[in-house]
């Protein structure tokens, strides 16, 4: 079973993503801020990380850079979730080391399929 780490501060959106992914058979671990997200990633080495960009304190860009610089995690795909505030954000997201991004609000009909694209063979 593939493990997905979700780093997201909004409780309802976290529940939403967790529910969708669990329904599709993924194992979900979650963190509510960047620092504990990085810790959890080190501990669990997930198959994919879903990262909210607008996080309190340590923002998503910083978290992505930290994750990518860790030798254990450099290979783990990161998918950013963003409300796409301003143009230029996308470039910044990719420059920070994310493999892709999904715009908020997420579309529950296509969300899981979109994520699987970044997982290669590991998704089921």
């Amino acid at each position: 079973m593939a493990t997905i780490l979700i780093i997201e501060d909004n409780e309802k959106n976290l529940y939403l993503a967790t529910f969708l992914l669990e329904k599709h058979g993924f194992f979900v671990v979650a963190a509510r801020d960047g620092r504990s997200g990085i810790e959890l990633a080190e501990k669990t080495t997930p198959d994919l990380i879903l990262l909210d960009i607008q996080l309190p304190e340590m923002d998503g860009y910083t978290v992505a850079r930290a994750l990518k610089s860790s030798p254990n995690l450099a290979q783990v795909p990161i998918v950013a979730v963003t409300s796409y505030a301003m143009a230029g954000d996308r470039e910044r997201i990719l420059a920070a080391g994310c493999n892709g991004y999904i715009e908020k609000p997420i579309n529950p009909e296509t969300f899981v399929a979109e994520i699987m694209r970044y997982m290669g063979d590991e998704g089921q």
Partner: protein
Amino acid sequence: MDRRNKRRQRSMKITINEIQKKYLEVVENVNCIVLRWTPDGLITFINRYGREFFGYAEEELIGKHVVGTIVPEKETTGRDLRLLLQDVCRHPERYEHNTNQNMCKSGKLVWVEWVNKLVYDERTKKPELLSLGIDISKRVQAEEELRQLNETLERRIAERTAELQAALEKAQSADRLKSAFLATMSHELRTPLNSIIGFTGILLQGLAGPLNEEQTKQLGMIRDSARHLLDLINDILDISKIEAGQLEVAAEAFDVRRMIEEVLEAVMQQAAKKGLTIGAAIAHDVSEMVSDRRRVKQILLNLASNAVKFTQHGEVRLECKTQGDTITFSVHDTGIGIRQDDMDNLFKPFQQIDTGLTRAYEGTGLGLSICKRLVERLGGSISVQSVYGKGSTFTCMLPVVYQASSA
């Protein structure tokens, strides 16, 4: 012979006297100050013009020291004139031209430009200074006024520059505030919408358990309204960004056909509901363009959804062709059409044409104004042709390769 000589001598004397008289007259009457003074500063001669100019009688000046009579101790500039005069006497060659302040009997200060020359008294063979002076007080005053005017002007310019700088900084910080506000709004508004749309979708997919028909119907309405709200938020944010000059555009190569397919897919359902035929005619040479994919798609989607929205019967057709550096998209419909008079207002924000039917069509009237601004931002143009009651064609021309400077 002797008498003849005497007579000649007498007539020569008369002639010399006459010449002397003439010279004296010239010196006395010339319109400038003629002054002779000794190196110790004593006046030996001053002409009539000079006396009248300074307001002294002859005996009040002859034999008197220049300082204290026609020369003040100090200039208003602070220069010590006694020292200056000593220097003039010592090095007259350095003071061929010299401007200094002088003083009248009345105490009035004047500016005089002097030309000085060392001469020798014929009788005593002693050196004396011959000085010619003209009054330049008016010029000095004018220069002074000019200088003050310049100073005032410079000060005003400096003040004005500072004001403008402050205004600019204020505007810049207002701008920063605006973009921060937009970014925050964008995030804050989407976060709750994310869960509304998301959970409705989960429920509708039956992921949380089976639904009855009525529940499905109502949840469908919630989802449609939430999506509508999202469109509105996006439009308002877009127009604010455009107005604030903060719409950045990307330039990336993308497949035009694929994008047109996506646009059709997005309006397909709506068109099918109304029984409209929908299709695209893409010229064979159309392949890629370099522009902001997201924005080009947004423009076409706006035009296509308008076409579907304002058409009851018939078809909506998307056409695309390239010609040289320009790619042309047109969206054609057989809908209600637009009156000639209404054409002007079409691209203004919040304008919905009042057809009496307006309320029958949902929308805020932002779509076309955003389209127009986006098209222009991408270096292109948009136009419309319509026959009222028959249908409309919106045509949008864009550069095949967007260059930042072309916008």
